[in-house]
């Protein structure tokens, strides 16, 4: 079990780190898809199959497509060939310092924490149970999330739409 977890972690963290370090955006996006798939694998490992499928559908399926489109739409020629600016070096260094110190404090906190012993067996959570809980207990939240998604969709369309036809000067 632990071996499987470690394998999944290596895949997930490795592809994520590579994605953050690559200079080619397409590569980064594809590596991130791999990382998200690793997260989905972790969910499967933990016994949350439904969440794993949702993760695959949303991240590996939908968000990655949007990201790829955004990358293609905003691609600038030969960005990878540009020389690295001094400002980028200092920013990278400070970012690494901040991230490392955060990792250190949280890691130490986690390592020294004591949790109550848990049952060794994986809890059984059927899709039916999740569906019932979603519809009954969290019905209102589900509706609100639906509205949020709809509004976000319309908002994204409006923001990204090409509004050159309308001059903002003489908009009412």
């Amino acid at each position, binding site marked *: 079990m632990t071996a499987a977890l470690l394998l999944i972690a290596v895949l997930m963290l490795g592809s994520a780190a590579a994605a953050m370090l690559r200079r080619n955006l397409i590569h*980064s996006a594809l590596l991130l898809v791999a990382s998200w798939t690793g997260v989905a694998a972790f969910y499967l490992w933990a016994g949350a199959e439904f969440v794993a499928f949702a993760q695959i559908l949303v991240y590996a399926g939908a968000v990655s497509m949007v990201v790829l489109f955004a990358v293609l739409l905003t691609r600038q020629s030969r960005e990878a060939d540009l020389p690295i600016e001094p400002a980028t070096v200092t920013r990278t260094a400070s970012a690494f310092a901040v991230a490392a110190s955060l*990792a250190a404090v949280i890691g130490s906190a986690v390592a020294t924490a004591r949790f109550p012993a848990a049952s060794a067996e*994986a809890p059984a959570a059927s899709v039916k149970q999740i569906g019932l809980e979603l519809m009954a207990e969290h019905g209102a939240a589900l509706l609100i999330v639906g509205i949020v998604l709809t509004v976000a969709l319309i908002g994204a369309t409006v923001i990204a739409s090409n509004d050159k036809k309308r001059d903002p000067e003489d908009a009412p």
Partner: protein
Amino acid sequence: MTPLHLCLLISTALFCIGLFGALARSNTILVLLGIELMLNAANINFIAFWRYGPNPAAANGMIFVLFSIAVAAAEAAVGLALIIAVYRHQKNIRLQEATVLKG
């Protein structure tokens, strides 16, 4: 070292990788993706505590993750639309150049 500790350490690592990406990269798309990674790290925590928590029978952890994924999807859509709008405005998507709102 229980599996719960291991899971939490993995999520910490993923969170810090995401933070590093968000802080280091100048491409706004990558900044956004770093933030997505941090969100995923939080989701891993939820699942871990559900799996090894005191009351695994309740599906609350999973429900929480589902909502989180939904909101993250919305955030990604709006964020990427904003990136396209910014690109149309300043012809690149370098985050350090989008400083119109400075005081």
